[in-house]
């Protein structure tokens, strides 16, 4: 008790703080009501004049009905009906709600009042539930906002309390309050918006990649985790998370889809059953299973054979990630066909998907086959530019695929260059794929051989996506690689391409500002990172306004013409798409 008095004295008269019942209750672990009583008894104890605390009270109750005594029948406890719109202010031009039949409802008022006005305030209440001390302060509180000054202490104390302990302080906790991650159910719908596919993808990919020596374990871990995390949602969560649900939602759902889903579920169940140990195998199995389903399914819907063939072919090659996307394609095929105009007209994504499935499978194959890897790059560049800038134009054919790839890339503009570099290496690796692809297509499970490519592919993806994850640190390597290409000047220093701007008067007397790029020798001593940064920035600024122009240029000018900003923008944007595309093309070329 005395300790409490000491505390109050110190807080009030030495530190000149406001003490509310809440802060007192936190400071001494008292129930809120007890704290209120303590404050009251502190106030009641006579104190020297210099140490007279000022109290603020809280009155809860029902106010007298300010006007219209007719409601004063006050038959019983419920007498204090309050006409709803009897709030003091009546906005101009608005009629009383009362007239139009708004309900009359009881109103409880919680009034915070300083000690000196307490009696006045009490008189206004027709019924009082409770009066208690809210706070003590060294001087009368003129500003009610000061009661918030103790909040930091309260929050701090509350943060340390368990919810059980806080109930002892008077907090009423519902048993339905849960800490923790948002779980499925309703909330999932909102979280779905934010992060549909990427995190899962990345997570998977990175966990696969991390230690090459023992990929099985990590894969299995991630699998397990995912399985644990959402055991319920049946369709395609763990392994094929890339926006599957969204996509299927976008479609007018057909019976076909559900059929497919069932199949997938089966595949999933299988996966779970097989459990982690031979994850690759399991994966393989499910993949093939899906292939099967996809095949039969498409056959059923009398889809062009070519696409059916192409789909499974691509699936194993591209590893877990791509598989999802492709599956989606097969999903959407039947839906998009019979669906009426509006659906077809929906966002370009759908149209592209359609085009992808229709033309993409054979057209892409052929086009990719015919294109040798090297010249692909500029082409890719062109395509990408058009993709980014002219979103509306429904670029047929390959666009769908690019879109899918773009989904991933959207996040990672920074590290694209690095990915570009990676690609070159991967191209060689990719040569082993064709063999694996064919067995995968066959219904019976290919045992030992297949896992490798899957892993390999996974690794490829991984390398890319690892860089996705850590864009900033990857800047230096990007720089280095670029330098290899750049000539060394006569003075022995490396050269660097720099975009500059010059302004001059042209023939007709107009001021013309032109961007141009030139090589500049670079001092090797100079720290690399800042330079890279600067370069990137310059590029960014350079290519944003020029993009359409650049696109045009790259369309017109044959491939490598290193003109202006198109050049500078190219390495930044193009590579990622190229990685995806290039590898596919390589793959088909080998075939």
């Amino acid at each position, binding site marked *: 008790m005395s300790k409490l008095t000491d505390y109050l004295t110190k807080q009030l008269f030495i530190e000149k703080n406001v003490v509310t019942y809440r802060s007192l209750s936190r400071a001494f672990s008292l129930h809120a009501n007890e704290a209120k009583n303590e404050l009251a008894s502190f106030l009641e104890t006579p104190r020297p004049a210099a140490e007279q605390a000022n109290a*603020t009270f809280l009155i809860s109750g029902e106010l007298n009905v300010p006007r219209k005594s007719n409601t004063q029948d006050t038959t019983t406890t*419920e007498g204090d009906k309050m006409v709803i719109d009897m709030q003091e202010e009546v906005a101009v031009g608005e009629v009383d709600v009362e007239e139009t039949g708004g309900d009359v409802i009881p*109103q409880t008022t919680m009034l915070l009042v300083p000690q000196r006005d307490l009696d006045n305030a009490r008189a206004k209440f027709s019924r009082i539930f409770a009066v208690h001390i809210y706070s003590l302060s060294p001087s009368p509180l003129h500003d009610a906002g000061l009661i*918030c000054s103790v*909040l930091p202490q309260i929050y701090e104390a509350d943060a340390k309390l368990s919810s059980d302990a806080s109930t002892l302080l008077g907090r009423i906790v519902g*048993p*339905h309050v849960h800490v923790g991650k948002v779980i499925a159910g309703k909330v999932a719908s909102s979280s779905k918006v934010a992060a549909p596919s990427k995190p899962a993808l990345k997570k998977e990919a990175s966990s696969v990649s991390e230690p090459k020596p023992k990929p099985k374990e990590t894969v299995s871990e991630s699998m397990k985790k995912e399985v644990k995390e959402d055991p319920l949602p049946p369709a395609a969560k763990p392994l094929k998370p890339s926006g599957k649900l969204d996509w299927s939602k976008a479609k007018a759902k057909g019976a076909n889809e559900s059929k497919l889903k069932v199949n997938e579920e089966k595949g999933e169940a299988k996966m779970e059953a097989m459990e982690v140990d031979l994850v690759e195998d399991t994966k393989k199995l499910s993949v093939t299973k899906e292939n099967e389903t996809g095949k039969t399914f498409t056959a059923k819907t009398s889809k062009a054979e070519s696409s059916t063939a192409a789909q499974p072919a691509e699936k194993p090659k591209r590893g877990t990630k791509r598989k999802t996307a492709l599956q989606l394609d097969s999903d959407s095929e039947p839906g998009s066909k019979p669906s009426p105009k509006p659906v077809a007209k929906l966002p370009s994504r759908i149209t592209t998907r359609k085009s992808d499935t229709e033309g993409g499978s054979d057209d892409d194959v052929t086009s990719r086959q015919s294109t040798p890897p090297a010249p692909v790059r500029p082409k890719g560049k062109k395509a990408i530019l058009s993709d980014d800038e002219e979103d509306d134009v429904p670029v047929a054919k390959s666009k769908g695929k690019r879109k899918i790839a773009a989904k991933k890339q959207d996040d990672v503009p920074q590290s694209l260059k690095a990915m570009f570099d990676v690609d070159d290496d991967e191209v060689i690796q990719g040569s082993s794929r064709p063999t694996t692809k064919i067995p995968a297509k066959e219904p019976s499970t290919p045992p030992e051989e297949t896992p490798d490519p899957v892993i390999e592919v996974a690794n490829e993806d991984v390398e890319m996506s690892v860089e996705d994850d850590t864009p900033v640190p990857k800047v230096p390597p990007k720089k280095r690689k670029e330098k290899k290409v750049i000539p060394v000047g006569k003075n022995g220093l490396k050269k660097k391409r720099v975009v500059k701007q010059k302004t001059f008067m042209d023939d007709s007397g107009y001021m013309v500002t032109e961007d141009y790029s030139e090589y500049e020798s670079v001092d090797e001593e100079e720290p690399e990172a800042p330079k890279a940064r600067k370069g990137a920035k310059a590029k960014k600024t350079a290519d944003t306004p020029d993009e359409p122009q650049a696109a045009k240029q790259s369309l017109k000018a044959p491939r490598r013409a290193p003109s202006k900003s198109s050049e500078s923008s190219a390495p930044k944007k193009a590579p990622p798409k190229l990685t995806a595309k290039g590898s596919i093309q390589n793959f088909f070329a080998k075939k």
Partner: protein
Amino acid sequence: MQFGTPLPVPTSPVTRIPTTIVPPNPKSPSFVINAANKSYKHQYANIYFVRLRILRGLVEERAKRRWKEIAGDPVFVPRVLEVEKRKLCFIIGTVFMDMPMKPNVLDDIARDHSIPAPAPRPKYYSDEDAVMLEDESGRIRLVGERLRTAGLVTGVIMGALGMETQSGDFEVVDYCFAGMAPQDSVWPKTTVTEDMDVDVDSSSPSRDEWIALVSGLQVGDPSPADAQIELLTEFLTGELGGEDDQTKSSRISRVIIAGNSLAPAVSVAVNPEEVQTDKKLRRYGQETTTFTTHPTENLSGNLLDIARSMPIHILPGASDPAWTILPQQPLPRAMFGGASAFSTFTSETNPTYIQIGPSSAVSSPSSGNASSSKTSASTSTTPTRTLLVNSGQPLDDMFKYLASPPHDRLSLAESTLHWRHMAPTAPDTLWCHPYFTTDPFVISQTPDLYIIGNQPRFATRMVTEKESGKRCRVVLVPGFRETGTIALVNLRNLEVKTVCFKLEGMTGEVEA
């Protein structure tokens, strides 16, 4: 002193009555804009088209039933332009209000941009307004005394009975809307009378679940209501007041914050209406004596405090840092600091449907709140309730179409239920997402509780449709900063109470 007997301290901790969120009715649309419908390429005309297609059949059916007895045997003319002169008929179409005062995008383009635009008008209403009815074929001008009181706004699907006049206008004798949408809830035949009688109160067991409705906290406003918000927080956590208050608080199962939790970052041109209602002294100069100047921190502090006690549903509103077009998407959880750690803290879209059921009614284990079913001690007869909540923008906008003496917000809100559309003005004067294949603002299911936030004053009414017995409690939740008022709704009988947090003898502002 006279503050009487010490407050009793409960011997065992009081627990709150739980409720659970039931997965939304598949028939009620989701307002989430996801990858599937996130496209801004479409023309808004589609919304009107879809809306007319959805509602025309319903209006027609109702109109036929309503007017079949009428002498003159009115026929239904499917296209508004095909009405015949001097022949009683009825037509169905979308109402278009041709209002000279209404903002017009063409004016906007034609405007001289070197001159600052005039402030937006508080009302579009004027005497020269014309009502048109439009469908795919064209528009026809509606005239008639009957329309005066109809309280129409653009975008409503309406059936009009009448005949064409010499001048080519359509003289309206009667009109008809789609009527209230179907409702799942079954209401007992012996319904409670609307004034909450004493016996209603006493018959309701103390375990009825209540929910608290708050809107317009406006944290960070120049004249803040910090103290009231703190009182509110303490009331909700169950620490404020005496035993009665704490018991009352323990029945509040969850709180819905219907928008405008944060004050606008820049002071926008204030609605004159608001200025009138805002009697509080403006604070001069931004004084920062309260604990921090960071509004989101203040807000999340309070929210965390509440979140420890009960589930929170928070909607974005006009002044929140969310996009302006409807449906507003959920505020990012990360904004709310500690509160976001609670799975029971839910960030909702702006119009949103919420289904709340008693805790024992947990049927789906995936709902995440399943564990609360353990505490089925408080099982009650409370049925599952469907709530339709918005932050007030649709109503605010519709209200500009109408002259306020004959019309008021509550009846306008009621009308939206009869129109079966919660935001008919949406593509016209209320910004909304260019939906292509749907119009999610069509009310396909009449909610049990229709909550509209950020209104100038509290008002509520039970809306019933006699022919079908559908009932819906409309609650206009006032802005908390201006009124300090929250509403409590009993989920069992939809009884409403308000709690007002006030200050006396002191200011809400920090004195310089």
